[in-house]
Structures are given as structure tokens and as C-alpha cells.
């Protein structure tokens, strides 16, 4: 998609600014937020506590997915045990089907207390896997290609350096002024990343 005649090379992805430690990073993060960027991010080798408020990132909706999955897992457990072992006999389940109601040692068909372990385990199983997959889905992982990985410098983002990346699709982005802005924040280095 050639935007106009003047751009010939590959499209710009954004600019990354490298920071050495927390003391230079955190004031820079606050200034970026105040500048009003929208498509920007901080890349760090470990979770920085409290950076979400500084960046103005909203809380994730992940817990709601997990809650729904937990309830679904619990219902699955209840249906699996009550329907199959108690069937339509002597129970509150409105199905007109019969599954496997075994009469063993005169135990009641609907012996609900005995089924709590499978129901509990299925609740946990559904919730835990939803937590993992919802996290991956919301984060857009697995993502085996990303323009940032072209940068040699950026490899330190998973080791010992912090990066602020302002993307080109941000409405306030301008190659010249954004570079100057990031340089003034005390960045160790600046790098322009191409798409």
C-alpha cells in the first residue's frame, strides 16, 4: 500500500528508545503518558509493578473469562456426574434420558456429596486453562514475527534494558518530533524500526 509518491522504502513501524535503569525509565514513561500517545508501549525484562497506572493502561478483562470458564466447568462437572449416575431417576434434572444409573450397595442414585471431587477438579481445570489461553489470546501470542525483533539492540529488552516504543500508527507520531521528544527523555539510544 503505497501511501504517497514520496515514500519508497519499507513502511515505518515506530521508534524505540532505550533506557538503562528504572530511575530514567519511570519519569520518561510519565512524560510519554502526558504527551498523549496512544499506540505506545514499554518493554521490560520483568513486570514493573505499578507501571499500568503510570502508562494509563486499563485493567485486563481476563478475570471475567476465568469466572465464566469456572462456572462452565462446574456445570460440566454437575451434568457429567448427576446426569450419568442419577439419570432421570429421583433427581431434579429435567432430562428424559437414562445414562448409567448403577445401583451399588444401595447407595442413593443422586449421591451428590460423592461427586464434589470431580466437579471441583473440572472447575479448576476449565478456569486454569482459560486463564492461560485467554492471556495468550489477549496478548496476541503466539506471535512468531514482530518488526521489533529485527533490532539487535532490542534483544536486551528481555535481559537488562528497558525500551519505550512509540508506533508510527499513533496519531501524534511524527518521525522528527517524536525522536527529539524521546531523546530529551534521557534515552541511551534511539532506533527507527521498519515494518
Amino acid at each position: 500500500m503505497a501511501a504517497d509518491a514520496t515514500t519508497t522504502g519499507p513502511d515505518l513501524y515506530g521508534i524505540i528508545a532505550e533506557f538503562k535503569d528504572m530511575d530514567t525509565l519511570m519519569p520518561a514513561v510519565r512524560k510519554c503518558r502526558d504527551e498523549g500517545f496512544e499506540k505506545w508501549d514499554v518493554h521490560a525484562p520483568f513486570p514493573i509493578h505499578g507501571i499500568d497506572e503510570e502508562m494509563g493502561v486499563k485493567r485486563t478483562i481476563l478475570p471475567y473469562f476465568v469466572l465464566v470458564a469456572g462456572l462452565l466447568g462446574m456445570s460440566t462437572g454437575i451434568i457429567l456426574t448427576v446426569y450419568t449416575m442419577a439419570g432421570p431417576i429421583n433427581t431434579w434434572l429435567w432430562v428424559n434420558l437414562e445414562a448409567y444409573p448403577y445401583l451399588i450397595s444401595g447407595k442413593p442414585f443422586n449421591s451428590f456429596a460423592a461427586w464434589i471431587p470431580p466437579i471441583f477438579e473440572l472447575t479448576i481445570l476449565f478456569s486454569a486453562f482459560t486463564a492461560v489461553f485467554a492471556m495468550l489470546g489477549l496478548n496476541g501470542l503466539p506471535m512468531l514475527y514482530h518488526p521489533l525483533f529485527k533490532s539487535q539492540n532490542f534483544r536486551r529488552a528481555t535481559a537488562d534494558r528497558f525500551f519505550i516504543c512509540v508506533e508510527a500508527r499513533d496519531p501524534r507520531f511524527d518521525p522528527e518530533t517524536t525522536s527529539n521528544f524521546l531523546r530529551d527523555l534521557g534515552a541511551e539510544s534511539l532506533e527507527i524500526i521498519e515494518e
Partner: protein
Amino acid sequence: MSTINPSYITSVPSDNTYDDPAERPPLITGANDFTSVTDKVVDIALGKPNPIWWAAFLTASFFALLFFIQIGILFVTGVGIWGNNQPVSWGFPIINFVFWVGIGHAGTLISAILFLFRQNWRTSINRFAEAMTIFAVVCAGIFPLIHVGRPWLAFWLFPYPNQMAMWPQFRSPLLWDVFAVSTYFSVSLAFWYVGMVPDLATIRDRAKNRLTQMFYGVLALGWNGSSRHWQRFERMYLLLAALATPLVLSVHSVVSFDFAISQLPGWHTTIFPPYFVAGAIYGGFAMVLTLAVPSRAIFGIQDIITPRHIDLMCKVMLGTGLIVTFAYTVEFFVAAYSNHHFEQFLFLNRPFGPYKWIGFWCMFTLNCVIPQILWYKPCRQNLWTVMLAAMSVNAGMWFERYVIVVTSLHRDFLPSSWDDFQPTFYDFSMFACSFGLFFSLFLIFLKVLPIVAIAEVKSVMPQAHEGHGHDHGHDEKGGA
């Protein structure tokens, strides 16, 4: 409050085990920063294996191979090669199952419960404790599967619709076990793997050749350290910890129900769920220590797994050991107080019957007496005495399960059906060789994957907090 000595960042303190409330000890010793912690852990995965590693791995994989050969012999011959018989129809396989699944509990406990309690010292040891969990549960799962008689039909344990109108019995504790252990395994595996993703990305970014870059690149799923990703990641980690905590407690409770739901004296006890959970954590921490003490020396990570970590693990072990000792005592009290004469006979038979030495007194000495040395700080600081206590608990916890299974079964209600239990060569060798499988898997993990949760360790280092460079008077904000 500005009493923390800034020299701990530049000098190399040897002892961080002090308990001075005015001066919180550092979790990571030595002159470490983010770069050096990354280097230390990543170099283990990317560097050449140490000769000690090779020696250990070859030995362990030899025994793992023997284990699989013996499983083959078992499948061809049948379970008659074991000593299981009437009345002791549950012999070594169930003892080994409970033993291994118990070891598997410390990993998730360290990861989940200590995470919820904000115990930051867990970060240095959680990764390999979780790996230990996975591999111990693998070993645990094998024993009931090969013990069912027709192991190729083990999938009958799972509820799936079939034309035989054959359905698992959800009232049975053995089926609860299937649900509990398989859920525990899969949730622990997920917890372990996603927790490792950021560290796999660290290795990916440090890898030099194309093949390792691709290997770790695929495993790291494209993690790029984005703060928006970290936010969801941390929320997920918290939720998983919150879900794994009741799961850990439920799994061993369910394992104890295998026994407690029965009518047999010695098994039919309401104290079993907490007693088994405490025992599992006891045995699991002993195994974590057994693995941590040599690994930190072999891989040179004494700055990351410090004397303080060992000290704290010893304290957890001592605490759970006291719970276990209390549970043993309560069983005797309840037997006496119940006035149930079968129960009373059994609890006299344990310390004074045919299995008194190779059984009860072994268990009692190894679990309740020897670990008491950990009350003394010099013993917790000396790696040899720590290993002595850990090894004694490892062995003692196996004897505990042996006592529960064998002494309860061999003298049941009717004297005419009494008989003694004779373990065979295969009983002993399959138990011994299961360690080969466990250690082979664990050694592969130690060499290939990040053995310390690098990102988590960084987040508890003082440098991870703003203002660290100006003021050393912070009270370890990461600890809050």
C-alpha cells in the same frame, strides 16, 4: 529506616540468613545486577554441559531405560511379578504412587501458595520446584496405570460414551484420583510452561546459532516484554496461583480418600486429608532441598539460591514435619479413645508387630527424630546436615506410605485371612528405577530450560524499584 547497608550490592556477603527486622537481608547475594543474573542462568542453558551433569545424566538414563524394560516385562508377564497378593493387594505400586505424588506437591506449593503469601524468596527456587512437580507426577502416574492389570485398557478410567454401556463410577475415590491427578498434572504443566515463557524469550534473545534461536523462539511464543503483556501475564499468574492452591490441597486429600473412604482400620481415619497434605509438602520440600543443594553448586548459582533460601526451606520442612508427627500421635490417640478394638489392635501392631523395624520405627526415626536437628541454626547452615535431614525425610516418607499400606492390610478383621507381604525383586527394582526416569527428566530440564525464574528474580532485586539509585533506605518495596 535508612539502615540497610548499601555495601550489599557491591560487596559479596556470605551470610544472608540473619533475622534482623531493622535490616532486611538481600534475597540475591553477591554483586549481581540484571545482566549478571541473566548471564548466569542463560549460560547454563546455552553453554556446554558440565562433566558432572553428563555423569549424572548417563547414570539416570540407564536406570530409566531399565524401568521401561521392566514395565515391558510386567506387561508381558502380568502383575504376578510383584509381591501384591491377598490380603496385601495394594503393595508397592500404590506406595510408590503416593510417594511420588507427594513429592510433586512442594513445587506447586512454592509456586502458588508462597506466591499468594507474597513470599519473595520463592522466586529463586520456584522454577525447578515446578519442574520437579511435573516429573514426580509423571513417575506417580505410571504406577497406578501399570498396576491396573490390563494397562492397555487404562482409558476405561475416563468418562467417554461407549457401546459397552460401561461408565466410570463417580462415587469411587479411585475415580476421583483420576480426575484429581490428571487435573493436577495438566494445570501444573500449564503453570510451569507459561511461567517460563518470558525466560525462554531471554534465552532466545541470547542464543547465537540459528538452531537454538529457532528452538527457543518457538517455545517463547514471540514474547517481547511488552508492559501490556506483562499486565495480563501477571493477572493470569495470580489467578493460576489462586486456582492451584486449592488444587494442591485437594489432590492429596483425594489421594488420602483412596484410603480413608474404606472401612479398614488404620485407613478409615478423618485426619487423613490434612495429614497426607502435610506429609506431601514435607516430602516435597525434602526433595526440593535434595535437588537444590547439589544443583546450585554444580551450576554455580549460589548467589541466586542463597543460604537464606535453604534456611527457609528447612524451616518449612521442620514445620510440616511437626504436623506429620502430630498426625501420627493423633492416630494413636483416636485409636485408644475410639474403643474400637480392631483399630486398637492395629495401632499396637504397627509399633510392635511384624513390621515394627522395617516399617514403623524406620518411619518414626527418619521423619520425626532426625529432622529435629533443623531446630539448630548451625545445622540449617551446614549443607551436609541439611542433606542428611532431607534424605532422611525422603526415605521416611516412603516408609510412611509403606506403613499405611502394608501394616493396615496384612492384619485385617479376620485372623484366618492374615498373611505377610513379600516384596519381590521387581518391586524394589521398579521403585529404584523410577528414580532414574525422574532424574533423567530433571537433568534434561536443568540443562535445556531456564532453571531459575529470571524475570521473577529480577523483579525482587532492589534495582527493580525506582529511586534505588538515590536512596538505599527503601524497605524492600518488592517485599510488600
